[in-house]
């Protein structure tokens, strides 16, 4: 028996049995199974290739390809993957990456540490303001130092983390929902502070211009690597195949940051800190009895979580170009809680799945509505459905209004997004408390034991 143990993967291989882990290293590996390794690798590859015009992923297979061009379903590229290559999805996907960073941070505090925080947007705002001051244009109406991205991006995280450390003693003192409501208070205070210091946060309504992602050594004119400007003529690195514009470059930048932060989060989770936090989450007194320093680890959790939030806030500001201070409000904070609950709190992949789901949802709803409109207009096959769902005026009982102002009972597309998102929180919590990750686990376990039910 012993000879069938694969030392390399640490898996215990027996015919017809699920593979077992035989060492701690194998059990705690980032990707414990080969399938996961392949899936994640494939996913990351697709995400990296998405902005480019790659056959199969974002466009049709060229006729010169011998076998693949004969398969009819591949005429437009790979199904499911194909839509990712659409330029319309580049910006929502970038937003997914940015929110993913913030969600990973909240996951460490709330998912791993069990500390309810409704103040994540406050730390995001703190990071965004730091980035705006350090990287913003010099000599304008607003404070700005014109520093390059490699300074303001980490600094945004560090400043937010310091604020997190200042706040963390309340977490030691308060428990559960008391902490949640206090952190909620932070958000209101933060939005107010952004009004008090317009020279930092910008105008109340319109905000200020955020620094660009251009990679510079210092304040020189010509950036080493232009990220925020399109150079479609020469292509990136002068390679014509990689014709990218600024949106795609920002996409790549945020994707790289997200991957780095995700691995960091996964490793924190596997480390002593992560285990201590999980112990505190499961039963704080028991953790203290076992020698876990509660105050210290809560401080660490707040610092790490705020660091992530600060980075995400800085990315978010630069991604949008202009952010007003009051955008970092309670609804943004609730969105992250929703992301965690829908994705599955306590796991990195759950947080990322939840982010994808929640951030892409509005875009998807918008696309579906547009599609319904087309169906109605062109009298397509789904016209009856479109007639029922879309409203034509105050007398019509259709629930969706495509007009910018929707009087009467019909809600606009934006309102429906909010309603769907609120209902999703309720539905997921009632029917699938472990979120998307729970669904994935259930599916996986079903096939693991197949054809048996256990």
């Amino acid at each position, binding site marked *: 028996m012993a000879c069938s143990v694969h030392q390399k993967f640490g898996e215990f291989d027996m015919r017809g049995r699920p593979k077992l882990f035989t060492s701690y290293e194998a059990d705690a590996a980032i990707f414990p199974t080969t399938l996961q390794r392949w899936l994640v690798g494939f996913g990351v590859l697709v995400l990296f290739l998405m902005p480019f015009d790659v056959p199969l992923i974002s466009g049709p297979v060229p006729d010169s390809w011998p076998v693949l061009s004969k398969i009819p379903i591949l005429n437009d590229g790979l199904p499911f993957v194909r839509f990712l290559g659409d330029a319309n999805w580049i910006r929502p996907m970038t937003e997914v990456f940015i929110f993913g960073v913030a969600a990973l941070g909240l996951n460490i505090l709330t998912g791993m540490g069990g500390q*309810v925080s409704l103040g994540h947007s406050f730390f995001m705002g703190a990071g965004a303001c730091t980035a705006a001051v350090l990287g913003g244009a010099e000599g304008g109406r607003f404070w700005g130092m014109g520093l390059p991205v490699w300074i303001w991006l980490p600094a945004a995280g560090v400043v937010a983390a310091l604020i997190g450390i200042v706040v963390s*003693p*309340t977490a030691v*003192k*308060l*428990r*559960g*929902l*008391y902490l*949640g*409501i*206090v952190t*909620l*208070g*932070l958000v*209101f*205070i933060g939005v*107010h*502070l952004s*009004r*008090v210091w317009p020279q930092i946060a910008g105008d109340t309504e319109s905000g200020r211009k955020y620094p660009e992602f251009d990679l510079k050594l210092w304040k020189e004119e010509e950036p080493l690597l232009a990220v925020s400007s399109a150079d479609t003529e020469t292509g990136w690195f002068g390679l014509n195949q990689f014709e990218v514009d600024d949106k795609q470059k920002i996409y790549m930048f945020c994707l790289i940051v997200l991957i780095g932060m995700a691995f960091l989060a996964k490793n924190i989770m596997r480390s002593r800190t992560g285990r201590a936090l999980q112990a505190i989450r499961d*039963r*704080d*007194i*028991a953790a203290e*009895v076992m020698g876990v320093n509660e105050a210290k680890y809560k401080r660490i959790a707040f610092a790490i979580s705020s660091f992530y939030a600060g980075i995400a806030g800085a990315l978010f500001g630069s991604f949008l170009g202009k952010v007003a201070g009051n955008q970092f409000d*309670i609804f943004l904070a*609730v969105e992250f*809680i*929703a992301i965690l*609950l829908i994705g599955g709190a306590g796991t990195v992949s759950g947080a990322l799945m939840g982010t994808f789901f929640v951030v892409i949802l509005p875009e998807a709803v918008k696309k579906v509505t547009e599609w319904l409109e087309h169906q109605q207009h062109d009298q397509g096959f789904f016209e009856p459905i479109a007639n029922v769902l879309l409203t034509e005026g105050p007398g019509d009982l259709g629930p969706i209004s495509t007009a910018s*102002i*929707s*009087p009467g009972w019909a*809600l606009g597309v934006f*309102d429906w997004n*909010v*309603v769907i*998102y*609120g*209902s*999703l*929180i*309720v539905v997921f*919590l*009632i029917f699938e*408390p472990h979120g998307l990750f729970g669904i994935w686990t259930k599916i996986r376990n079903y096939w693991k034991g197949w054809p048996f039910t256990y």
Partner: protein
Amino acid sequence: MLHLLAQVDPGGVSVFATLINTIVKGLAMGGVYAIIALGFVIIFKATQVVNFAQGALAAAGALFLSFLVFDQVSSDVPRGQTPFTWWRAPFAGEGLPSVAEQWASVGLVALVAGLVVALLAGRQISAHALGVAFVAFLACRWLATRSGFTWLDSPFVSLLVALAVGTVVGVLWKGWKPPMEMLVAGGVAVVAQLIIAAIDTKWVEWMGNLTIALLFGALFGMFLERVAIRPMIGQPLFSMAIITLGLEIVIRQFASDSVRILSRPVSAPWAADLSLEGSDGGFRIGGAFYNWSWVAILIAAGLSFVAVNIFYRSKLGVAMRAVSFDQEAGMAQGINVGQVFAIAWALGAALAVLGGVFATQPPISQEGAVTVTTALVAFRALPAIILGGLDSVKGALIGGLAIGLAEIFAGEYLASWQRTLGAGYQQIVPYIVMLAVLLIRPYGLFGTPEVRRV
């Protein structure tokens, strides 16, 4: 003291009069917070859930009231176009509400008051008998207004007829004993309404509408409890709180869709009537202006506090306290925990609606109408319950008043610092007070510390 009294500020109002005025205004503001906080506390005590949907419930209830009292968004929309006028259809002809209609409101108030008292007394009420009584009442009123049966024109007679019918049905159905409290309370309510009606007839209709709005809130609360909270019993408290956040998002979106273009007035009877000369909706003492709504709020807050305290001493209230102490032990003693939860949510939601109606009035809002910001009043009341302690009725009142006083005093006496503190600084004073108190007393002033076991 004397020199204080003699001191007169440029506006012609003495410093002392301003001080008293500020105190009353602060207490009024705190009164609204206290009403909403009482709702929070009742729900938290019974179900251990911080109901974040309280604000949305407040907005929805106030909106409901606005539809009841003001069914013309603009003058060219004919009456009866809005969906909530159906309840008046049995009574109403064309044009302005008739005397009979106003009396119908009186009767409804009486009926509802009787039910509440009977519930407080812990009597078992046969739902069938109640339903029959209600239908009988409606039938009486319909007959009175449509067929010229003048003897039915007195709603008191109608009410008696209805109660008699309901009683007979109840006795025949299950040997139900008619609760005397119900009849007594009905009589008391009729007398009270008569007194108010003697002052001004517009009060009668408005109070009737308010009662119906409160009833709507109670039913809505029970519905939410049944749909979203009951399935979650046994889940982590954090999940239950977040579910209410999801509900808040959904309900608020629907509520704010109705007021996004035009705010909807609740037409409070004490408000200034622009068509009358010299009606400014208030009175003056020592030159300082007192709004009638302040008085109304203070009375309502006092009555709510007394009512909640009486309720907790009734049989059902004792059951509720027992359940909040230990659900399983309560169940073993024969308490219907589900019923207790439902009643708690009904009461909490009704208090939220009451608070929401007052949140449209000065000093919270100067508009006298439901706007998109009405729902935010619950977030401003959150510091009040945290300050007083999540599970203390006394704490809700004192916390609410303290927060209101702090906010108004900061607004009044730090106004010269406005430039440093930023516009609207008084709105974050509650959160700062809350933070300061929580760091000294983690469970608020009167909250019960959580007993922690390993």
